[in-house]
């Protein structure tokens, strides 16, 4: 066997192993829609005069961000299942289950902290806490989805940290910038990757 042929076989091995462990199910359009929904939520808060610094606004904030969260999750799950099935792959694959397990701890901590803030009246901590917890979840996704998710996860962490120590009075703006802007960024990065792959094909 010639070394060139051996290298080709090593490339087959590398490629198969990478396809096995790399999660590519997240569609760009789902990220973009999630970003648009977050920006719409922030705009709704502005229009309704809702502020995270005002404990009286708890009900309104819960309504707006609860709806944003429910819609974002629903469209994300639906579009991901559609995208994966279109490629002829099973939606609830072993890799998808691993991704969900990696993402869940951040979501769980976010939910626990949300209840804590609600009970203690510290609603102003919610946007930074959500951003940090979501960043941890996106980093969990990054274990299987690569550097783009890792980058966006780190940016969520940075936005949340800034929110805790510098931007706490600007909760609604932080929501628009982090959950809005960073989802749009992730969608853009994924779309660029898909465009690169199509041009390679």
């Amino acid at each position, binding site marked *: 066997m010639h*070394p060139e042929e051996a290298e080709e076989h090593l490339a087959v091995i590398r490629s198969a192993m990478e396809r096995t462990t790399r999660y590519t199910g997240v569609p760009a359009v789902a990220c973009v829609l999630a970003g648009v929904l977050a920006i719409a939520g922030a705009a709704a808060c502005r229009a309704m005069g809702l502020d995270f610094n005002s404990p009286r606004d708890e009900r309104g904030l819960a309504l707006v961000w609860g709806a944003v969260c429910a819609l974002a999750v629903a469209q994300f799950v639906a579009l991901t299942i559609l995208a994966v099935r279109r490629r002829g792959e099973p939606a609830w694959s072993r890799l998808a289950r691993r991704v969900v397990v990696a993402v869940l701890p951040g979501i769980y901590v976010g939910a626990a902290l949300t209840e804590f803030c609600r009970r203690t009246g510290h609603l102003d901590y919610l946007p930074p806490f959500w951003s940090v917890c979501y960043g941890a979840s996106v980093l969990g996704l990054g274990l299987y989805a690569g550097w783009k998710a890792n980058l966006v996860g780190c940016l969520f962490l940075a936005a949340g940290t800034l929110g805790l120590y510098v931007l706490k009075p600007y909760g609604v703006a932080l929501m628009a910038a982090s959950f809005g802007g960073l989802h749009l960024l992730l969608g853009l990065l994924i779309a660029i990757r898909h465009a690169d792959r199509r041009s390679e094909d």
Partner: protein
Amino acid sequence: MQTAAVKIDDLDRVIHERARLAILSSLVAGGETSFAELKAVVGLTDGNLSVHLRILEEAGYVAIEKSFVERRPRTDVRATAAGRRAFRTYLDVLERIVKRGRK
């Protein structure tokens, strides 16, 4: 060329075929996998994948389990210990060939 001729004898013919090499690589990297997932990863048709899996199973390199989940048939495949050993040996041989080619 003498070296190359000797080395090809060391290569496991069962794994050497590219589709089977991709299947075994995927199973070694990802653990137990369903037939549908494996099909998506290696990009083979149902028929081709079945044929290659049968060859790997006959060599003792993979174990195939058939079951029913919610009344639907399900096939799970995993690399056996012998399959993992054969894969490592195959990799060693490939690496030696590449290294000798670079010298």
